[in-house]
């Protein structure tokens, strides 16, 4: 196996009494598009700043390309960062902003000019080199920041909430743009975001952070379909959590007694000991709503309390006899809005044995 391009070796960072990053051990491979995902104050930005060299770890080491850079100042590290505020130099033209990094390396003027032009073409800003940052739109500023950070061809590009300041349409468009650019330049990208959809669509791998720790890493699919704990299950997308106790184990088939609903649930491809207290994490789109009692073994009866129309699908909230509310998402396969069920109607919810996953913590 090759050397990881980034290695956080048991890194801890404290600010006074606050532990911002708590014993993080993380390796990121060359060419990855890695997303650090978490709520505000979870330490994801601090982790990025530790890598850029703006913060020094309280303990642990930071390695880039196998080299210990813990004591290397920011201006000597082979990483570049795109700031959340973009941090464009207001007194310099777009060209000068983009050229800044190369100028620090003392490159010949002709080469700087060629590479600036190249970088501006990459982010589709050709012809705007003479403008000042305050003459640009938000989307254009974001591209300038990107070009400026990319021009030195860093080992790793760090992006701090790169899309947060853009409106929704532009954000979606820019997501694909970022993926195209990463593909084109082949640089390892590490993006920090609080937006799980953004992380899922951009990244090849996600690290979910909570209270300074990385609670799970994996591909977007792994994070979504097989969350390892309640927090990840709950943080990524919506989820129904059915608390229960394991009553039978047959190979990988586990039977969970969900006392509150008064049912037994069968879960395939799981592993657990009998009597373990855990929960079934069930995504709303995995639940089928029907009026007739289904034949599937995992089913529960309830009353429709709410139907939310989202265009592509409907969110249906169903209250079971115990008072618990389960969420189901039903695709709108037909234009006809008259669904087979209405508010306050008695319905059945059912799901297959392989559609949920057991979470323990």
């Amino acid at each position, binding site marked *: 196996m090759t050397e990881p391009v980034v290695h956080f070796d048991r890194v801890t960072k404290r600010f006074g009494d606050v532990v911002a990053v708590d014993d993080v051990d993380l390796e990121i491979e060359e060419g990855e598009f890695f997303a650090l995902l978490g709520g505000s104050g979870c330490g994801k930005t601090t982790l990025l700043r530790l890598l*850029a*060299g*703006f913060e020094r770890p309280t303990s642990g080491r930071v390695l880039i390309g196998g080299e210990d850079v813990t004591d290397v*100042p*920011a*201006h*000597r590290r082979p*990483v*570049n*960062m795109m*700031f959340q*505020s973009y*941090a*464009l*130099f*207001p*007194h310099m033209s777009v060209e000068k902003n983009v050229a*800044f*990094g190369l100028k*620090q*390396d003392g490159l010949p003027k002709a080469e700087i000019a060629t590479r600036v032009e190249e970088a501006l073409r990459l982010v589709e800003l050709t012809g705007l080199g003479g403008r*000042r940052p*305050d*003459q640009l739109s938000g989307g254009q500023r974001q591209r300038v920041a990107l070009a*400026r*950070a990319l021009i*030195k061809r860093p080992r790793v590009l760090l992006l701090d909430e790169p899309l947060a300041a853009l409106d929704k349409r532009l954000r979606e468009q820019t997501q694909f743009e970022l993926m195209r650019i990463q593909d084109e330049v082949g640089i390892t990208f590490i993006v920090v975001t609080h937006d799980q959809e953004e992380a899922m669509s951009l990244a090849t791998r996600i690290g979910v952070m909570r209270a300074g720790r990385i609670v799970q890493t994996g591909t977007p699919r792994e994070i979504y379909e097989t969350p390892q704990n309640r927090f990840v299950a709950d943080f990524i997308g919506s989820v129904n959590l059915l608390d229960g106790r394991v009553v039978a184990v047959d190979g990988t088939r586990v039977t969970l007694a969900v006392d509150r609903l008064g049912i037994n649930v069968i879960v395939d491809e799981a592993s657990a000991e009998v009597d373990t207290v855990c929960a079934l994490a069930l995504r709303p789109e995995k639940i089928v709503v029907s009026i007739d009692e289904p034949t599937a073994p995992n089913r529960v009866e309830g009353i429709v309390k709410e139907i939310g129309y989202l265009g592509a699908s409907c969110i249906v909230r169903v209250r079971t006899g115990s008072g618990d509310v389960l969420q189901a998402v039903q695709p709108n396969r037909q234009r006809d809005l008259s669904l087979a069920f209405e508010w306050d109607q008695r319905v059945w919810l059912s799901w297959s044995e392989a559609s949920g996953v057991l979470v323990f913590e």
Partner: protein
Amino acid sequence: MRGRATVIAVPYLWLLLFFLVPFFIVLKISFSEGTLAQPPYLPLYEVTDNGEMEITATADSYAFLIEDPFYAEAYGRSLRVAFFATLIALLIGYPMALGIARSKPPWRNFLLMLVILPFWTSFLIRVYAWKVLLQGNGAVNAALMALGVIDQPLQILYTDGAIYLGIVYSYLPFMILPLYAALERLDASLDEAAADLGASPLRVFLAITLPLSMPGILAGSLLVFIPAVGEFVIPELLGGPDAAMIGRVLWNEFFANRDWPVASAVAIAMLLFLVIPIMLFQRYQERPTR
């Protein structure tokens, strides 16, 4: 709308009354002829007995300013002293302002308060205090001798050095405050971005911090330079008898020589010298940044 107009009109009216009107009075005196009377100048025109108007206005006072090299020297000296005092204040004030702006927020107000603290004592008293400190047997000489730096008391008082010291000391807060205001609102992530792109701390300062604080540098420099040019108290108290700065010349013409026309011409010429840098500053400020 009317409320806003009033708020603006009142201070302008005030300025009109107490700046513009005196200015025109001084301007008028500068063009009149001196005389031994009360007031010590003649009117600009007289209406003779046969009803003719006789213009008695004259530019003699200005001609006198140009002819006598004493005045040119005084102007030159004032501009030179003010320039170097401003430069020294900038070199001392900039690191201080930067230090305050970069300190932790709870410290900032405390440090700023220390900068403003001298204002709680009268300016005149503070300059007098320097006079006492700098005397041959004053605290400064005593301290230097006690430390073994010198054997004999130094002649500090009544030198140009004392004038510089007095001006820099008195006007330093006027340099620090606008510099602080400019530096404090600089986005720290700009420095980080520059460092991230490979700029050493010195390069970050030269390429980012310094140019972005230029409005503060200009404002602070003007606030020190302008009053320093016309400074009267400091050269009078701390400077030597031959330290003819324009403020002292002005005072002497008015009160010692009672030559009001020449004194007024000196004042008008000084004003012109000062208006030029202000206008340059205004043009810099208005330069379109967008």
